[in-house]
Each structure stands twice: as structure tokens, then as C-alpha cells.
């Protein structure tokens, strides 16, 4: 067994040191009734590296790989090109195989990365401070809602219909148990977002308004009026960003008055990975920092006065505050945060802006081309790199038919909102820098065939 260094002679010698006759002596506390004597049925024995590679490889080959076909899926997870150096660096053992930096003197590498990451996220979002990551965008979103409850001491959250349905669904799950009240709505297949509904719903009991930017259908709304109305009523504005690349092109939510900005960081550095692991980004105004969930890295000095970094304000966290902690999160998404940070460093101001411009341009070209397919309508007036088409028939079977033709053509609203008939003809199409002109042409003509 290649991962186990002990030899049988070592084991015997160690048992002698311990004063045990056999390994069974070390398991004496296990009650008789719970001891397994034989093997568990139906489980294979150990296998060579080559054999495991074959088994895993066979499963991998049964999947249609995004990079090998015309690919247009988004809705909370985006395919961007990740520079080769990102994956190289995150595989360095000193990052990959280290733990949470609880001993700062021998974890300055991770800690400085976290400090840089926090600064990058805060600036991208237009906020003062960001934490060292959450699991993903959806859990970060719920954490933001509970944080708003702590800050405002109110329990009613208004969720925009443009918020990712999985994020809504998770909030609904949790709210059932925590007693938070959620005001939710389905999106409508129109160019207008539900900003009017949000404005009309804010009142003196509202803890927060949660708005996705750009939203699930790709639409972009000015958050400023919502922030103003929320603040006038003592409520917070939470902005949710599922596509961080967009912020290379459009105004940061923090600059439009958002109090808390959360989102998914997967687009930058992480890759699709069938939905996880991803990286939740969480930022807010400085005055709320003691209500934040998750780890925070801060600057300090060592005994010789040299600059260094430590995890700080830990009294918010579960390991110290236990049932009074701001969150139960412990393990977060450290390595994905590193990947995000490296990719962001490679991009820099110029790279991120250029990338955003390119994404937007390719999306505009695609939208114009696809809107020319007979029967297809472009729903959006505004969008960044993702927009919604209204097909002349149900989109979900159309997506399957496109897949049969070797094209991953988008996310149907039927998949996202299985019960909403009014949405079933909607197809959300994401177009990033990886999409070529040929891909757009291929989708347009396949769509035409499928709809015929």
C-alpha cells in the first residue's frame, strides 16, 4: 500500500513500546456489538495507481467536455480561460498541503495571499473590507442575509426575482428554520428587472434587499435608487455578483451604495468543476466588520517590528464564540481564493478591463446573431456577457436536442424554474472570451434546425 510507510516489523515494535499485544488492544473501547470482524461486503480491495487511473479515466470520458464543444452555459458558473501558471502555483505543496494559518510564524505565505485577496475583492466590489472566503456564492448570499438581520435587528428580507434560483432556494430552506421572512418573486421574461417591485416593498421592517447584478437573466440595473430607498428605511442593500468579470466593465455595487456585496468567484481562476469547489466572496462596509462571517486576515508586526499577517477578529468565529458566533463556517475555500488571487494578479487592472470588454463584445455579437434565428427573441435591453432568449417553444428539450448535436447551447429556464410555465421558453446564453465566431454560427444554425 503505497501511502503507508509503516512496515510490519515497525508495527510490532511500536505495539511493544505501547504495551499492547495486538492492534485489537487499541480498540478495546469499542463495544463488542459495534466491532467489525470481517470485511464489509461489496467493496473492492486496494488497487495500483495505473488501475485507478483507468477506472477514473473511464468515468471522465463519459462526460461532454466544455472545452471541446461550442459552449454557452452560465447561470452562476462561467467558463473562462485560466492561465496555466495559476494551476501550477496552486499545486505547490506549500499551498496545497498546508492548513488554515493558525500558526502565523510558519504560514506567512498563505496569510499574505489572504491579505492580498481580501484587498482585491474589496476593491473589485467597491467595499472597504472583504473576508478570506466563503464556500460559494450561494452560501455567502445567505450569510449576508443573516448578517443584515444582526445589523438591523429586523427579520424581513426582500429578494429580487433576478436572484439565482438556487440562491433563493437555499435562503428559503434556511429561513424556514430561522424564522426569517423572505419576500420572493419569480423573474419575468421582460427587459425590465423587478426594481419597481423592490422599491415598493421596502418598509420599516425590512432588514435587507437582495439584488443580483447582473441578474439571472443577464439584465443590469442601477442599484443606486434601491440603496437610497433601503437606507432611508434603515435597511441594507445586499448586492450579489455571480460573474465577477462583469465588474471589469460595470460600476462596482459598493460604489452604488450596497452595504454588503457577496458573490461567486469561480469565474476568475477556478474553472467549472461541475459546480464545486468554488469560492464565495464576501465584502462590506467597514462599520459592519464585527458582524461579518468567516475568517479575516489582518496586518500586524512581529516581535522584531517586521510586518506580518495574522488571522484576526476571531472572537466572531465558532472556535471562540461557539453558539454566539456570526457563522458556523470553519473550513472555507482557501485554495480557490488563492487561484482567484493569482488570476487577478495576472490580469491586473488592464487585463480585467480588457477581458470584460472582450466578453461584452462577443456577447453582443452573439445576441445579435441569435436574435436573427427565426422565432427567437432577445429578452434583454441590457446585459454583460449573458442574455436571455425567448424561443418559440419550450427551451429545455431544445437544449437537449442541441446537446445531441454536440453543442452545449445554454441553460434553459425550465431547468432552473421547473414549475414556472411562463418561463419555460427562456434560454439563458453566456458568451465569454472562449466562444469563437464559429461557435456562435454553429449554435445559430443548430438552434434554427432544432426549432424548425
Amino acid at each position, binding site marked *: 500500500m503505497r501511502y503507508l510507510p*509503516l512496515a510490519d516489523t515497525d508495527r510490532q515494535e511500536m505495539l511493544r513500546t505501547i504495551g499492547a499485544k495486538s492492534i485489537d488492544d487499541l480498540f478495546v473501547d469499542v463495544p463488542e456489538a459495534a466491532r467489525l470482524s470481517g470485511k464489509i461486503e461489496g467493496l473492492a480491495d486496494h488497487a495500483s495507481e495505473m488501475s485507478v487511473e483507468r477506472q477514473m479515466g473511464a468515468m471522465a470520458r463519459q462526460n461532454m467536455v466544455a472545452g471541446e464543444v461550442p459552449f454557452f452555459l452560465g447561470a452562476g458558473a462561467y467558463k473562462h480561460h485560466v492561465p496555466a501558471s495559476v494551476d501550477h502555483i496552486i499545486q505547490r505543496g506549500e499551498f496545497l498541503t498546508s492548513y488554515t494559518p493558525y500558526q502565523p510564524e510558519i504560514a506567512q505565505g498563505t496569510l499574505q495571499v489572504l491579505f492580498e485577496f481580501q484587498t482585491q475583492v474589496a476593491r473589485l466590489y467597491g467595499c472597504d473590507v472583504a473576508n478570506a472566503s466563503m464556500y460559494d456564492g450561494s452560501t455567502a448570499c445567505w450569510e449576508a442575509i443573516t448578517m443584515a438581520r444582526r445589523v438591523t435587528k429586523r427579520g424581513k428580507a426582500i429578494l429580487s426575482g433576478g436572484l439565482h434560483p438556487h440562491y433563493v432556494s437555499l435562503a428559503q430552506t434556511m429561513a424556514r428554520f430561522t424564522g426569517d421572512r423572505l419576500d420572493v418573486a419569480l423573474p419575468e421574461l421582460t427587459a425590465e428587472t423587478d426594481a419597481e417591485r423592490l422599491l415598493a416593498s421596502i418598509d420599516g421592517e425590512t432588514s435587507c434587499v437582495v439584488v443580483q447584478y447582473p441578474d439571472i437573466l443577464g439584465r443590469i440595473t442601477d442599484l443606486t435608487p434601491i440603496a437610497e430607498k433601503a437606507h432611508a428605511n434603515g435597511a441594507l442593500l445586499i448586492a450579489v455578483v455571480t460573474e465577477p468579470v462583469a465588474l471589469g466593465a460595470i460600476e462596482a455595487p459598493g460604489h452604488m451604495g450596497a452595504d454588503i456585496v457577496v458573490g461567486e468567484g469561480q469565474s476568475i481562476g477556478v474553472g467549472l468543476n461541475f459546480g464545486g469547489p468554488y469560492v464565495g466572496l464576501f465584502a462590506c462596509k467597514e462599520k459592519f466588520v464585527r458582524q461579518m462571517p468567516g475568517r479575516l486576515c489582518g496586518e500586524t508586526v512581529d516581535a522584531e517590528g517586521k510586518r506580518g499577517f495574522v488571522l484576526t477578529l476571531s472572537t466572531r468565529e465558532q472556535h471562540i464564540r461557539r453558539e454566539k458566533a456570526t457563522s458556523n463556517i470553519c473550513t472555507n475555500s482557501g485554495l480557490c481564493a488563492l487561484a482567484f488571487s493569482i488570476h487577478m494578479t495576472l490580469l*491586473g487592472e488592464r487585463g480585467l478591463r480588457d477581458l470584460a470588454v472582450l466578453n461584452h463584445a462577443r456577447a453582443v455579437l452573439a445576441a445579435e446573431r441569435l436574435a436573427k434565428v427565426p422565432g427567437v427573441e432577445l429578452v434583454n435591453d441590457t446585459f454583460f456577457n449573458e442574455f436571455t432568449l425567448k424561443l418559440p417553444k419550450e427551451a429545455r428539450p431544445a437544449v437537449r436536442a442541441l446537446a445531441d448535436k454536440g453543442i452545449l447551447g445554454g441553460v434553459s429556464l425550465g431547468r432552473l424554474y421547473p414549475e414556472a410555465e411562463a418561463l419555460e421558453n427562456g434560454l439563458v446564453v453566456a458568451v465569454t472570451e472562449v466562444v469563437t465566431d464559429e461557435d456562435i454560427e454553429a449554435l445559430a444554425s443548430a438552434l434554427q434546425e432544432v426549432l424548425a
Partner: protein
Amino acid sequence: MSINASGWKPEMGSGEGMEVQTFTGNRALMLEEPLIFEMDEAGGCGVDIAPAPKVTSRLGGLERKRDIGIPGLSEPQTVRHYTRLSRQNYAIDLGLFPLGSCTMKHNPRLNEKMARLPGFADIHPLQPIDTVQGALKVIADLGEWLVKLTGMHSVAMSPKAGAHGELCGLLAIRSALEARGDAREVILVPESAHGTNPATAAFCGYRVENIPATERGRVDLAALKARLGPDVAGVMITNPNTCGLFEPDMIEISKAVHEAGGLVYCDGANFNAIVGRVRPGDLGIDAMHINLHKTFSTPHGGGGPGSGPVVFSEALTPFAPLPFVEKQGDRYVLIEEETAEEHHGRTFGRMTAFHGQMGMFTRALTYILSHGADGLRQVSEDAVLNANYILRSLDDVLDAPFGNSGPCMHEALFSDKDFGGGLSTLDVAKGLIDEGFHPMTMYFPLVVHGAMLIEPTETESKAALDQFIGALRSVAERAKAGDASLKAAPIYAPRRRLDETLAARKPVLAWKEPTQGVAAE
């Protein structure tokens, strides 16, 4: 002969013990590294992005007006920056990492290779089901291993880490109780529990009460029984517990809780001690999370990501979260909201976007297939053997508060009893750093004064253990002798002790441009 004096003569030099203040602040391979914000040469960039075709903007007039303020570096600068930083970290790849409760075992590189196969790494979570059959099979196969290894009835794969798994288990418990019209409010948690246990219980609306430990470091069964009643929804018991001990009364605890109408959550963070030797299902529990990043070797990555699948008893299975994978004939389907009613009407719902930590599933399954059932059992045995070897090799110099009550499981626990000169567990930890080891977990569990929790894992050879034991013995002896030099440790790390008080009093959580000269905007 002709003397050629143009070469150079190696010389040993002199100047023993001299300290030189270098110009750079570097010390040979120990390199100081500025922040990216201090390195930025305006407009730096490490990617080449194709020029964008000209189009009419559809951004709705919300174009970003001001700079983001993030620096960019070329690829060589970037690689060097992070490589230099990486060298300031300790890691399993460098040596023994005895962080108790965290299970720092070797992270096989085959796991990494498999997780990066494009068929796993480059697929979108919302692709049509028929285009991801292999991915669903990975989830189903891993789930089946977990169910069989734990002797439970079903598994929820979507939780993102241990704490998220705890949440999953408690939400199922609450749903099951509510389904029978029983709104109980209290969760009992042992004093020794990990902080996530009480935090999770509170996070989903429960009130938390502590149950005391016995002198032998176990749950006090009598106290537990005395507290059970119609308001108690359940208990959260860690087994093996956070003192590194098996809870011998577990079957009876489960029975008592069930009789009182409650349910049993088991924190399975320490499952690595018993895989293949004990099935938690045989202990009468209702739900347990498994940290794939502990027991099944997925890397900790400096803090995450992890993955925390939860196994359920038959009673809790109907309440498990969405989505989940089901085999229908020879095809795998993903049960999301759409079909939930018919299949799974009592589910408590979704707890994350998409379907869980796929990248961790491929790694964990690779590890499981590599070890197989026989290997996994050997893994637990070696982990327990290594911990007991440490316990018995050091219990003459360090106080082992539960050492007299028999063997430990996968971790050895010591206290700071008899340290002299005002020295503490912290000082011992910092002393170990100078010896080239990552310290053990300190001050956890809370039930032992100055706790030092040492988990060697099966990864360590006897030689590595012996070296560690020698080092800790030496530092412990210094602590008992009141050797004040320990207060200065670490001396040889990239940084001396850091001022955590300053960090907390005046938090600096993001870099700001120095404001010298020009007034800030």
C-alpha cells in the same frame, strides 16, 4: 611547472556567529516579499487578451467610471511572487503536521491528476444530464462507498465542508421532528465539542446546552440522561471524540436519546480512526458528516475547500436535502426540484447552489479506490497505532489527562501541567516550530487545561515519529524546567511571534496606499 593563479580557491572563511544586516532584508533562501500592491508597475499584465470587436454597448450606461485599483504583474513576476510566498509556509509535503482533529495526512498526487481530467474539471453543473453520466457515476460510487463504510442508509453529497454537513444533519433532524409535530428547541452538545457544533445548532435556530464530560474524558451518560426530555431535539456527539477517545457508551447514548424522542447527530470529523473497524451505523446514530478533507485525503489547501457529505439513518432519509443522484436503470439522474415531489416529498430542500464539491469527490474516490477496503482498514489501524505510540512515548514527560484510562484512538492529548517559569502550551508550540515541526492543536478541546492535541496520522513512518517525539520531549523538558528562552520562540521562522493584540485593536484588513505627501482624495 607553470603556476596558473587565475582560478579561485575555495575557503571556509571565518566569522562564526556573526549576524549581518543584509541590504535586502533577505537571508539567503529566506526571502522577503512585498505585497502585489507595492510591486505594481502601472499597467502590468500577465495575460494576452485578444482585441475586442467594436460593438454598441449594452451596459445600460452603467460603465465603470473609476479605476478598480488592482495591480497586475507579468507572468514571471507572478510566478516568482507566489513561489516566494509559498516558501514561508509549513506543509505536509515538508514534514509531520500533527494538528489534532485536522487530520493532516498525505495528499496523494494521483488525486490531483484525476480531479484535473477535463471530463471532471471542465464540465458545467447545469449541462444536460445525459452529457455528464460519468460525473454522476463518480458521485453515486463515492456515495455508495460512504454508505457501506458507515453502515448507514443513505447519503447527502452536497454539503461543502464539515460545518455545512452538521447543518445538513440538524436540518434533517428538525424536519423529521416537525413532520411529527414535535417542535423541540434544545440541542445538547458536550463541553469538549468542536466550536462548529454549537455554532451550527444556533445557526439553524436551536438553543444549545452543554453536557459535561467525565473524568475519563467521555460524555457523562448519567448527566445526559438526566437532561433528556420533551424539549430536547437531539444530541451532537463526536465519536471518536475530540479528546481522541472512543465513546464506549455510544450505543446506550443513542438508545436513551431515541427513547426520549430525540435524534442523534454524530460529528464524524474523526471517522478516520475507525474506518473499516467500526460502522457508525451500528452505534445507533441518525446522521453523521464525513470530512472528505480529513478522512479521505483531499488537500486542505491552506484553509479549504473541503467537502462534508452526510450519511443518514433510514428514519432521516426522507428528509435529506436536494439535489441527489439516483440510478434509474442503467442511467444516472439528478433529482433537483422538478421531480422532488414524487420522489422525495419531505426533503428539507436545497442547501447550496449546484450539487456539491465535485473536485473533492473525484479526489476522495481516487483515494478510496487506491486503498480499497483492506487498505482503508489498515489506514485506521496505523493512525491509531501512531497516536498511541506518541502517547506512550511521551506520557512520562507530559501529563496525559486521560492516559490512565486506556489507549487513545487517532490522537494523543496532553495538558500543560507542571510547566515551570510561567511557560505555557503556546510556548511549547512555538518551540516546536524552531525544531522544524508544525505545532499540535493547542487549547482545544476546552476541557483540558492548556490542551495539546497531537494527531500524527498514518502518513508518518516510525523514524519520523521518533524524531518528532525527540523534539517534543526536548521542548517539554525545557518548559518544565522553566527555560525562559522558549518565550522568545520561534527564532528561526520567517517571522518572530506576531502581535495579535495590535491586529485586533486596530484592524488593518486591506492594503491602503500610503498617504504621505499628497492629500488623500
